[in-house]
Protein backbone atom coordinates (compact mmCIF):
# COMPACT_ATOMS: atom_id res chain seq x y z
CA UNK A 1 0.00 0.00 0.00
CA UNK A 2 2.74 2.37 1.10
CA UNK A 3 4.69 1.35 -1.99
CA UNK A 4 1.69 2.15 -4.21
CA UNK A 5 1.28 5.52 -2.52
CA UNK A 6 4.96 6.19 -3.12
CA UNK A 7 4.53 5.21 -6.78
CA UNK A 8 1.60 7.62 -7.13
CA UNK A 9 3.65 10.35 -5.49
CA UNK A 10 6.57 9.73 -7.83
CA UNK A 11 4.32 9.79 -10.89
CA UNK A 12 2.73 13.00 -9.62
CA UNK A 13 6.12 14.53 -8.90
CA UNK A 14 7.44 13.66 -12.37
CA UNK A 15 4.29 15.07 -14.00
CA UNK A 16 4.63 18.25 -11.95
CA UNK A 17 8.25 18.69 -12.95
CA UNK A 18 7.36 18.08 -16.59
CA UNK A 19 4.48 20.52 -16.35
CA UNK A 20 6.67 23.14 -14.75
CA UNK A 21 9.37 22.89 -17.35
CA UNK A 22 7.00 22.01 -20.17
CA UNK A 23 5.01 25.15 -19.44
CA UNK A 24 7.67 27.04 -21.27
CA UNK A 25 7.83 24.74 -24.28
CA UNK A 26 6.39 27.33 -26.64
CA UNK A 27 5.74 27.05 -30.35
CA UNK A 28 8.84 27.39 -32.46
CA UNK A 29 9.64 30.74 -34.02
CA UNK A 30 8.11 31.27 -37.42
CA UNK A 31 9.95 32.36 -40.54
CA UNK A 32 9.72 36.14 -40.82
CA UNK A 33 9.71 36.73 -37.06
CA UNK A 34 12.42 38.76 -35.40
CA UNK A 35 14.86 36.42 -33.63
CA UNK A 36 14.74 37.13 -29.89
CA UNK A 37 18.03 38.46 -28.59
CA UNK A 38 20.01 36.51 -26.01
CA UNK A 39 23.38 36.50 -24.32
CA UNK A 40 24.93 33.16 -23.34
CA UNK A 41 28.30 31.90 -22.10
CA UNK A 42 30.26 30.22 -24.86
CA UNK A 43 32.86 27.48 -25.11
CA UNK A 44 35.49 30.12 -25.87
CA UNK A 45 34.99 31.58 -22.39
CA UNK A 46 33.28 34.75 -23.61
CA UNK A 47 29.62 35.69 -23.61
CA UNK A 48 28.03 35.72 -27.04
CA UNK A 49 25.09 38.00 -27.77
CA UNK A 50 22.96 37.43 -30.84
CA UNK A 51 22.58 41.13 -31.55
CA UNK A 52 26.36 41.55 -31.81
CA UNK A 53 26.08 40.06 -35.31
CA UNK A 54 23.23 42.36 -36.42
CA UNK A 55 24.17 44.37 -39.49
CA UNK A 56 27.37 42.36 -39.87
CA UNK A 57 26.79 38.64 -40.32
CA UNK A 58 24.06 36.10 -40.87
CA UNK A 59 23.71 33.60 -38.02
CA UNK A 60 22.96 29.90 -38.13
CA UNK A 61 21.73 28.68 -34.75
CA UNK A 62 22.12 24.93 -34.37
CA UNK A 63 20.28 23.54 -31.35
CA UNK A 64 21.58 20.12 -30.37
CA UNK A 65 20.58 17.66 -27.69
CA UNK A 66 23.59 16.79 -25.65
CA UNK A 67 27.34 17.06 -25.42
CA UNK A 68 29.16 13.80 -26.10
CA UNK A 69 26.19 12.15 -27.82
CA UNK A 70 27.74 10.59 -30.95
CA UNK A 71 24.99 11.87 -33.25
CA UNK A 72 25.33 15.42 -31.89
CA UNK A 73 29.10 15.20 -32.37
CA UNK A 74 28.55 14.02 -35.94
CA UNK A 75 26.15 16.90 -36.63
CA UNK A 76 28.50 19.55 -35.25
CA UNK A 77 31.41 17.97 -37.11
CA UNK A 78 29.42 18.09 -40.35
CA UNK A 79 29.12 21.87 -39.93
CA UNK A 80 32.83 22.02 -39.10
CA UNK A 81 33.66 20.22 -42.36
CA UNK A 82 31.83 22.93 -44.33
CA UNK A 83 32.82 25.80 -42.09
CA UNK A 84 34.75 27.58 -44.85
CA UNK A 85 31.69 27.57 -47.09
CA UNK A 86 29.63 29.17 -44.33
CA UNK A 87 32.35 31.73 -43.76
CA UNK A 88 32.42 32.56 -47.46
CA UNK A 89 28.68 33.26 -47.24
CA UNK A 90 29.21 35.48 -44.20
CA UNK A 91 27.45 33.09 -41.80
CA UNK A 92 28.39 32.72 -38.13
CA UNK A 93 27.46 29.30 -36.76
CA UNK A 94 26.42 29.10 -33.09
CA UNK A 95 25.72 25.72 -31.48
CA UNK A 96 23.35 25.80 -28.53
CA UNK A 97 22.49 23.15 -25.96
CA UNK A 98 21.27 22.97 -22.39
CA UNK A 99 24.56 21.49 -21.16
CA UNK A 100 26.82 23.02 -18.53
CA UNK A 101 29.45 25.43 -19.95
CA UNK A 102 32.31 23.23 -18.70
CA UNK A 103 30.94 20.19 -20.44
CA UNK A 104 30.44 22.21 -23.63
CA UNK A 105 33.97 23.56 -23.52
CA UNK A 106 35.36 20.01 -23.31
CA UNK A 107 33.11 18.90 -26.16
CA UNK A 108 34.09 21.83 -28.40
CA UNK A 109 37.80 21.36 -27.68
CA UNK A 110 37.62 17.61 -28.32
CA UNK A 111 35.88 18.12 -31.66
CA UNK A 112 38.15 21.09 -32.42
CA UNK A 113 35.18 23.13 -33.54
CA UNK A 114 35.98 26.41 -35.28
CA UNK A 115 32.74 27.96 -34.00
CA UNK A 116 31.46 28.41 -30.43
CA UNK A 117 28.97 26.34 -28.49
CA UNK A 118 26.65 28.33 -26.24
CA UNK A 119 25.34 27.07 -22.93
CA UNK A 120 21.66 27.61 -22.20
CA UNK A 121 22.14 26.11 -18.73
CA UNK A 122 20.52 26.27 -16.22
CA UNK A 123 17.58 28.44 -17.29
CA UNK A 124 16.91 26.90 -20.73
CA UNK A 125 15.44 30.27 -21.63
CA UNK A 126 16.76 30.49 -25.17
CA UNK A 127 15.83 26.91 -26.03
CA UNK A 128 12.33 27.56 -24.70
CA UNK A 129 12.15 30.93 -26.46
CA UNK A 130 12.96 29.38 -29.80
CA UNK A 131 10.48 26.57 -29.09
CA UNK A 132 12.94 23.69 -29.15
CA UNK A 133 12.79 22.38 -25.60
CA UNK A 134 12.28 18.64 -25.39
CA UNK A 135 11.52 16.61 -22.33
CA UNK A 136 11.88 12.91 -21.81
CA UNK A 137 12.14 10.63 -18.83
CA UNK A 138 15.92 10.70 -18.75
CA UNK A 139 16.26 14.44 -18.89
CA UNK A 140 13.01 15.47 -17.21
CA UNK A 141 14.93 17.38 -14.62
CA UNK A 142 16.57 19.74 -17.05
CA UNK A 143 15.16 19.23 -20.51
CA UNK A 144 17.21 19.11 -23.67
CA UNK A 145 17.07 20.93 -26.97
CA UNK A 146 15.40 19.32 -29.98
CA UNK A 147 17.62 19.32 -33.01
CA UNK A 148 16.70 22.51 -34.85
CA UNK A 149 18.28 25.13 -37.08
CA UNK A 150 17.38 28.80 -37.41
CA UNK A 151 18.91 30.89 -40.15
CA UNK A 152 18.88 34.56 -39.17
CA UNK A 153 19.68 37.34 -41.60
CA UNK A 154 21.76 40.44 -40.91
CA UNK A 155 18.58 42.32 -39.87
CA UNK A 156 17.96 39.78 -37.11
CA UNK A 157 14.97 38.16 -38.85
CA UNK A 158 14.44 34.39 -39.06
CA UNK A 159 14.67 33.59 -42.77
CA UNK A 160 14.52 29.80 -42.61
CA UNK A 161 14.10 27.11 -39.97
CA UNK A 162 14.44 23.34 -39.77
CA UNK A 163 12.80 21.53 -36.84
CA UNK A 164 13.95 17.93 -36.70
CA UNK A 165 11.40 16.09 -34.57
CA UNK A 166 12.83 12.95 -33.01
CA UNK A 167 16.19 14.03 -34.35
CA UNK A 168 18.26 12.14 -31.76
CA UNK A 169 19.47 9.76 -34.46
CA UNK A 170 19.51 12.20 -37.38
CA UNK A 171 22.70 13.54 -38.90
CA UNK A 172 21.34 16.56 -40.72
CA UNK A 173 23.22 17.30 -43.94
CA UNK A 174 24.80 20.69 -44.47
CA UNK A 175 23.69 21.11 -48.10
CA UNK A 176 20.12 22.38 -47.43
CA UNK A 177 21.52 24.89 -44.94
CA UNK A 178 24.07 26.20 -47.43
CA UNK A 179 21.49 26.26 -50.21
CA UNK A 180 19.14 28.38 -48.08
CA UNK A 181 21.93 30.85 -47.30
CA UNK A 182 22.83 31.09 -50.99
CA UNK A 183 19.19 31.82 -51.88
CA UNK A 184 18.96 34.56 -49.27
CA UNK A 185 22.28 36.01 -50.42
CA UNK A 186 21.08 36.01 -54.05
CA UNK A 187 17.91 37.93 -53.10
CA UNK A 188 19.86 40.49 -51.13
Amino acid at each position, binding site marked *: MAFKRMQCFLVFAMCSINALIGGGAAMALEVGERAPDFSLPSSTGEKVTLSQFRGKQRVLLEFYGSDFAPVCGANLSARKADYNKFQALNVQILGISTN*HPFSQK*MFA*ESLQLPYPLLSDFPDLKVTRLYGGLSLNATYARFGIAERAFFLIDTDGVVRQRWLIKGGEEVIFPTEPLLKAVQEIAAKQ
Partner: protein
Amino acid sequence: MIASTLRAASGATAVERRTLSKLSLAALLLVCGLLICETPLAKRDRPVLIGALNASWGPTPQVVGLRDGLRELGYLENEDFVIGVRFTQGDVSALLGAARQLVSDGVDIILVDHEDSAQAARQATERIPIVSSALGDPVEQGLIQSFSRPGGNLTGVADLHLELGPKRLEVFRNMLPRLKRVLFLYSATDRYAATEAKALQQAARRLGVALIARAAQNEADAQAVLATLHASKIDGVLAPRCCALNLPDLIQQATSRSGVPAMYESGFWVDRGALASYGSDLYASGHMAARLVDKIMHGTDPAEIPVEVNRDVEFVVNLKTARTLGLVLAPETTYRANRFVQ
Protein backbone atom coordinates in the same frame (compact mmCIF):
# COMPACT_ATOMS: atom_id res chain seq x y z
CA MET B 1 47.88 40.01 12.53
CA ILE B 2 47.09 42.39 9.67
CA ALA B 3 45.68 44.98 12.12
CA SER B 4 48.79 44.84 14.33
CA THR B 5 50.98 45.12 11.24
CA LEU B 6 49.10 48.22 10.16
CA ARG B 7 49.35 49.68 13.70
CA ALA B 8 53.11 49.14 13.63
CA ALA B 9 53.21 50.77 10.23
CA SER B 10 51.76 54.02 11.62
CA GLY B 11 55.10 54.85 13.24
CA ALA B 12 57.24 53.79 10.28
CA THR B 13 58.64 55.69 7.31
CA ALA B 14 56.79 55.77 3.94
CA VAL B 15 59.10 53.13 2.41
CA GLU B 16 58.72 50.88 5.45
CA ARG B 17 54.94 51.37 5.39
CA ARG B 18 54.82 50.36 1.69
CA THR B 19 56.96 47.27 2.39
CA LEU B 20 54.74 46.34 5.34
CA SER B 21 51.57 46.76 3.30
CA LYS B 22 53.02 44.56 0.58
CA LEU B 23 53.91 41.94 3.19
CA SER B 24 50.41 42.20 4.69
CA LEU B 25 48.84 41.74 1.26
CA ALA B 26 51.06 38.73 0.59
CA ALA B 27 50.12 37.25 3.98
CA LEU B 28 46.44 37.84 3.27
CA LEU B 29 46.69 36.17 -0.13
CA LEU B 30 48.57 33.25 1.42
CA VAL B 31 45.91 32.77 4.09
CA CYS B 32 43.14 32.96 1.47
CA GLY B 33 45.02 30.51 -0.73
CA LEU B 34 45.46 28.08 2.14
CA LEU B 35 41.79 28.37 3.06
CA ILE B 36 40.76 27.61 -0.53
CA CYS B 37 43.17 24.70 -0.74
CA GLU B 38 41.92 23.24 2.52
CA THR B 39 38.22 23.56 1.68
CA PRO B 40 37.11 20.11 0.55
CA LEU B 41 35.91 20.15 -3.04
CA ALA B 42 32.51 18.85 -1.98
CA LYS B 43 31.91 21.94 0.17
CA ARG B 44 32.67 24.59 -2.43
CA ASP B 45 29.86 26.70 -3.80
CA ARG B 46 30.29 25.53 -7.39
CA PRO B 47 30.17 22.10 -8.94
CA VAL B 48 33.33 20.02 -8.85
CA LEU B 49 34.75 19.98 -12.38
CA ILE B 50 35.81 16.50 -13.42
CA GLY B 51 37.77 16.36 -16.66
CA ALA B 52 37.66 12.87 -18.17
CA LEU B 53 40.63 12.36 -20.48
CA ASN B 54 40.75 9.58 -23.04
CA ALA B 55 41.85 8.75 -26.57
CA SER B 56 38.38 7.54 -27.43
CA TRP B 57 35.48 9.25 -29.23
CA GLY B 58 33.50 10.42 -26.21
CA PRO B 59 32.41 9.03 -22.88
CA THR B 60 33.68 5.51 -22.26
CA PRO B 61 31.72 2.98 -20.13
CA GLN B 62 33.99 4.03 -17.24
CA VAL B 63 32.81 7.64 -17.49
CA VAL B 64 29.18 6.52 -17.45
CA GLY B 65 29.94 4.26 -14.46
CA LEU B 66 31.58 7.16 -12.62
CA ARG B 67 28.61 9.43 -13.24
CA ASP B 68 26.13 6.80 -12.05
CA GLY B 69 28.31 6.00 -9.04
CA LEU B 70 28.46 9.64 -7.99
CA ARG B 71 24.69 9.95 -8.39
CA GLU B 72 24.21 6.89 -6.18
CA LEU B 73 26.43 8.49 -3.57
CA GLY B 74 23.97 11.38 -3.47
CA TYR B 75 25.71 13.90 -5.69
CA LEU B 76 23.62 15.85 -8.17
CA GLU B 77 24.97 16.18 -11.69
CA ASN B 78 25.45 19.80 -12.79
CA GLU B 79 24.95 21.01 -9.22
CA ASP B 80 27.54 19.05 -7.22
CA PHE B 81 29.68 17.85 -10.11
CA VAL B 82 30.05 18.23 -13.86
CA ILE B 83 31.90 15.77 -16.05
CA GLY B 84 33.46 17.10 -19.23
CA VAL B 85 35.02 14.54 -21.52
CA ARG B 86 38.19 15.61 -23.31
CA PHE B 87 38.71 12.97 -25.99
CA THR B 88 41.31 12.83 -28.73
CA GLN B 89 39.65 10.54 -31.28
CA GLY B 90 42.30 7.83 -31.40
CA ASP B 91 45.24 10.23 -31.34
CA VAL B 92 47.37 9.20 -28.37
CA SER B 93 49.96 11.86 -29.16
CA ALA B 94 47.31 14.54 -28.52
CA LEU B 95 46.68 13.36 -24.96
CA LEU B 96 49.43 15.43 -23.35
CA GLY B 97 48.18 18.65 -24.96
CA ALA B 98 44.63 17.80 -23.92
CA ALA B 99 45.77 17.08 -20.36
CA ARG B 100 47.56 20.44 -20.19
CA GLN B 101 44.42 22.11 -21.50
CA LEU B 102 42.41 20.46 -18.71
CA VAL B 103 44.85 21.87 -16.18
CA SER B 104 44.59 25.37 -17.62
CA ASP B 105 40.79 25.01 -17.73
CA GLY B 106 40.91 24.66 -13.95
CA VAL B 107 39.52 21.16 -13.50
CA ASP B 108 39.38 19.87 -9.93
CA ILE B 109 39.85 16.19 -10.68
CA ILE B 110 41.07 14.35 -13.78
CA LEU B 111 39.60 10.96 -14.63
CA VAL B 112 41.73 8.82 -16.90
CA ASP B 113 41.42 5.38 -18.36
CA HIS B 114 44.30 3.34 -19.70
CA GLU B 115 47.95 4.04 -19.23
CA ASP B 116 48.44 6.56 -22.03
CA SER B 117 45.99 9.06 -20.63
CA ALA B 118 47.26 8.41 -17.10
CA GLN B 119 50.83 9.14 -18.19
CA ALA B 120 49.73 12.29 -20.01
CA ALA B 121 47.82 13.55 -16.99
CA ARG B 122 50.77 12.81 -14.70
CA GLN B 123 53.05 14.80 -16.98
CA ALA B 124 50.59 17.69 -17.07
CA THR B 125 50.12 18.04 -13.31
CA GLU B 126 51.54 16.94 -10.00
CA ARG B 127 48.94 18.95 -8.11
CA ILE B 128 45.46 18.07 -9.42
CA PRO B 129 44.15 14.70 -8.19
CA ILE B 130 44.01 12.05 -10.92
CA VAL B 131 41.75 9.01 -10.69
CA SER B 132 42.26 6.19 -13.14
CA SER B 133 39.43 3.82 -13.86
CA ALA B 134 41.60 1.26 -15.63
CA LEU B 135 45.06 0.68 -14.20
CA GLY B 136 46.65 -2.32 -15.89
CA ASP B 137 50.15 -2.35 -14.48
CA PRO B 138 50.49 0.89 -12.51
CA VAL B 139 53.59 0.14 -10.43
CA GLU B 140 55.60 -1.16 -13.39
CA GLN B 141 54.47 1.82 -15.47
CA GLY B 142 55.69 4.19 -12.75
CA LEU B 143 52.26 5.64 -12.10
CA ILE B 144 52.12 4.75 -8.39
CA GLN B 145 54.54 3.65 -5.69
CA SER B 146 52.35 0.85 -4.39
CA PHE B 147 48.73 -0.28 -4.39
CA SER B 148 48.31 0.44 -0.69
CA ARG B 149 49.90 3.90 -0.82
CA PRO B 150 50.05 5.37 -4.32
CA GLY B 151 52.27 8.20 -3.10
CA GLY B 152 51.59 10.86 -5.74
CA ASN B 153 48.50 12.59 -7.08
CA LEU B 154 47.16 9.48 -8.83
CA THR B 155 45.04 6.67 -7.48
CA GLY B 156 42.39 4.54 -9.09
CA VAL B 157 40.96 1.16 -9.92
CA ALA B 158 43.14 -1.66 -11.19
CA ASP B 159 41.33 -3.86 -13.65
CA LEU B 160 43.72 -6.85 -13.78
CA HIS B 161 43.93 -6.40 -17.54
CA LEU B 162 47.51 -7.61 -17.82
CA GLU B 163 46.86 -10.58 -15.56
CA LEU B 164 43.76 -11.50 -17.54
CA GLY B 165 45.54 -11.36 -20.92
CA PRO B 166 46.73 -14.98 -20.91
CA LYS B 167 43.33 -16.10 -19.66
CA ARG B 168 41.69 -14.15 -22.49
CA LEU B 169 43.79 -16.07 -24.99
CA GLU B 170 42.93 -19.36 -23.28
CA VAL B 171 39.21 -18.59 -23.35
CA PHE B 172 39.53 -17.70 -27.03
CA ARG B 173 41.29 -20.98 -27.75
CA ASN B 174 38.67 -22.93 -25.79
CA MET B 175 35.95 -21.30 -27.84
CA LEU B 176 37.75 -22.16 -31.06
CA PRO B 177 39.65 -25.43 -30.60
CA ARG B 178 41.14 -25.08 -34.10
CA LEU B 179 42.72 -21.75 -33.24
CA LYS B 180 46.36 -21.92 -34.34
CA ARG B 181 47.49 -18.47 -35.44
CA VAL B 182 46.34 -15.43 -33.52
CA LEU B 183 47.13 -11.85 -34.48
CA PHE B 184 47.64 -9.31 -31.72
CA LEU B 185 47.67 -5.91 -33.40
CA TYR B 186 48.59 -2.82 -31.41
CA SER B 187 49.91 0.69 -31.89
CA ALA B 188 53.68 1.14 -31.91
CA THR B 189 53.25 4.09 -29.56
CA ASP B 190 51.31 1.98 -27.04
CA ARG B 191 53.95 1.08 -24.44
CA TYR B 192 51.48 -0.83 -22.33
CA ALA B 193 50.42 -3.05 -25.27
CA ALA B 194 54.08 -3.93 -25.85
CA THR B 195 54.22 -5.26 -22.28
CA GLU B 196 50.95 -7.08 -22.87
CA ALA B 197 52.35 -8.66 -26.04
CA LYS B 198 55.17 -10.27 -24.03
CA ALA B 199 52.70 -11.79 -21.55
CA LEU B 200 50.56 -13.05 -24.41
CA GLN B 201 53.59 -14.62 -26.14
CA GLN B 202 54.38 -16.64 -23.03
CA ALA B 203 50.78 -17.76 -22.70
CA ALA B 204 50.59 -18.65 -26.40
CA ARG B 205 53.57 -20.99 -26.06
CA ARG B 206 51.91 -22.77 -23.15
CA LEU B 207 48.65 -23.06 -25.07
CA GLY B 208 50.28 -24.29 -28.28
CA VAL B 209 49.12 -21.26 -30.28
CA ALA B 210 51.27 -19.08 -32.54
CA LEU B 211 50.86 -15.44 -31.52
CA ILE B 212 51.76 -12.91 -34.18
CA ALA B 213 52.25 -9.61 -32.36
CA ARG B 214 52.35 -6.67 -34.78
CA ALA B 215 53.01 -3.07 -33.81
CA ALA B 216 51.32 -0.81 -36.35
CA GLN B 217 53.07 2.48 -37.10
CA ASN B 218 49.94 4.19 -38.35
CA GLU B 219 46.39 3.54 -39.47
CA ALA B 220 47.41 2.67 -43.03
CA ASP B 221 49.89 0.13 -41.70
CA ALA B 222 47.16 -1.40 -39.52
CA GLN B 223 44.76 -1.53 -42.48
CA ALA B 224 47.41 -3.29 -44.56
CA VAL B 225 47.92 -5.95 -41.89
CA LEU B 226 44.18 -6.46 -41.51
CA ALA B 227 43.71 -6.75 -45.27
CA THR B 228 45.82 -9.90 -45.35
CA LEU B 229 44.25 -11.92 -42.56
CA HIS B 230 43.41 -14.87 -44.82
CA ALA B 231 46.69 -14.69 -46.74
CA SER B 232 48.55 -14.75 -43.41
CA LYS B 233 46.43 -17.72 -42.30
CA ILE B 234 45.26 -15.82 -39.24
CA ASP B 235 42.34 -17.60 -37.63
CA GLY B 236 41.71 -15.23 -34.74
CA VAL B 237 42.47 -11.64 -33.76
CA LEU B 238 43.07 -10.26 -30.29
CA ALA B 239 42.24 -6.57 -30.05
CA PRO B 240 44.24 -4.15 -27.90
CA ARG B 241 42.36 -2.29 -25.25
CA CYS B 242 43.56 1.17 -26.15
CA CYS B 243 41.85 2.89 -29.04
CA ALA B 244 45.07 4.36 -30.45
CA LEU B 245 44.91 4.45 -34.27
CA ASN B 246 41.26 3.47 -33.96
CA LEU B 247 42.46 -0.15 -33.83
CA PRO B 248 39.52 -1.74 -31.99
CA ASP B 249 37.15 -0.37 -34.62
CA LEU B 250 39.41 -1.24 -37.56
CA ILE B 251 39.70 -4.79 -36.22
CA GLN B 252 35.94 -4.98 -35.80
CA GLN B 253 35.36 -3.90 -39.41
CA ALA B 254 38.08 -6.13 -40.89
CA THR B 255 37.11 -9.27 -38.98
CA SER B 256 33.44 -8.77 -39.88
CA ARG B 257 34.38 -8.49 -43.55
CA SER B 258 36.72 -11.46 -43.58
CA GLY B 259 34.80 -13.73 -41.23
CA VAL B 260 37.72 -14.07 -38.80
CA PRO B 261 36.71 -14.22 -35.13
CA ALA B 262 37.90 -11.46 -32.83
CA MET B 263 38.32 -11.37 -29.08
CA TYR B 264 38.18 -8.11 -27.12
CA GLU B 265 38.68 -6.93 -23.58
CA SER B 266 35.30 -5.23 -23.30
CA GLY B 267 31.73 -6.29 -23.94
CA PHE B 268 31.24 -2.89 -25.57
CA TRP B 269 32.62 -4.34 -28.80
CA VAL B 270 30.64 -7.58 -28.53
CA ASP B 271 27.49 -5.47 -28.46
CA ARG B 272 28.75 -4.06 -31.77
CA GLY B 273 29.34 -7.40 -33.44
CA ALA B 274 32.63 -8.85 -32.16
CA LEU B 275 32.55 -12.56 -31.32
CA ALA B 276 33.54 -12.34 -27.66
CA SER B 277 35.22 -10.44 -24.87
CA TYR B 278 36.87 -11.41 -21.65
CA GLY B 279 37.93 -8.79 -19.15
CA SER B 280 36.91 -6.45 -16.41
CA ASP B 281 33.52 -4.81 -16.58
CA LEU B 282 34.57 -1.28 -17.52
CA TYR B 283 31.34 0.25 -16.30
CA ALA B 284 31.95 -1.36 -12.91
CA SER B 285 35.48 0.10 -12.86
CA GLY B 286 34.07 3.58 -13.37
CA HIS B 287 31.43 2.92 -10.75
CA MET B 288 34.14 1.91 -8.27
CA ALA B 289 36.15 5.01 -9.15
CA ALA B 290 33.23 7.12 -7.92
CA ARG B 291 34.06 6.09 -4.35
CA LEU B 292 37.63 7.30 -4.78
CA VAL B 293 36.44 10.57 -6.30
CA ASP B 294 34.08 10.93 -3.33
CA LYS B 295 37.02 10.58 -0.93
CA ILE B 296 39.00 13.22 -2.83
CA MET B 297 35.99 15.52 -2.81
CA HIS B 298 35.95 15.21 0.96
CA GLY B 299 39.58 16.20 1.24
CA THR B 300 41.54 12.93 1.28
CA ASP B 301 44.93 13.12 -0.42
CA PRO B 302 45.06 10.72 -3.40
CA ALA B 303 48.52 9.67 -2.23
CA GLU B 304 46.80 8.06 0.74
CA ILE B 305 43.90 6.41 -1.12
CA PRO B 306 44.74 2.75 -1.87
CA VAL B 307 44.23 1.54 -5.39
CA GLU B 308 41.18 -0.72 -5.53
CA VAL B 309 40.90 -3.81 -7.69
CA ASN B 310 37.92 -4.55 -9.91
CA ARG B 311 37.38 -8.31 -9.75
CA ASP B 312 34.15 -8.09 -11.72
CA VAL B 313 35.26 -10.08 -14.77
CA GLU B 314 32.88 -10.53 -17.69
CA PHE B 315 32.85 -13.10 -20.48
CA VAL B 316 30.50 -11.91 -23.20
CA VAL B 317 29.61 -13.85 -26.36
CA ASN B 318 27.75 -12.66 -29.43
CA LEU B 319 25.65 -15.63 -30.53
CA LYS B 320 24.59 -13.96 -33.76
CA THR B 321 28.22 -13.48 -34.77
CA ALA B 322 28.98 -17.07 -33.77
CA ARG B 323 26.18 -18.26 -36.07
CA THR B 324 27.41 -16.03 -38.91
CA LEU B 325 30.89 -17.49 -38.53
CA GLY B 326 29.42 -21.00 -38.51
CA LEU B 327 30.75 -21.74 -35.05
CA VAL B 328 29.29 -24.38 -32.81
CA LEU B 329 30.14 -23.22 -29.34
CA ALA B 330 31.37 -25.78 -26.87
CA PRO B 331 29.09 -26.32 -23.86
CA GLU B 332 31.91 -25.00 -21.69
CA THR B 333 31.62 -21.65 -23.44
CA THR B 334 27.89 -21.35 -22.99
CA TYR B 335 28.23 -22.46 -19.39
CA ARG B 336 30.95 -19.92 -18.54
CA ALA B 337 29.66 -16.84 -20.34
CA ASN B 338 28.16 -14.12 -18.14
CA ARG B 339 26.22 -12.53 -20.94
CA PHE B 340 25.08 -13.32 -24.45
CA VAL B 341 24.33 -10.89 -27.23
CA GLN B 342 21.55 -12.38 -29.38
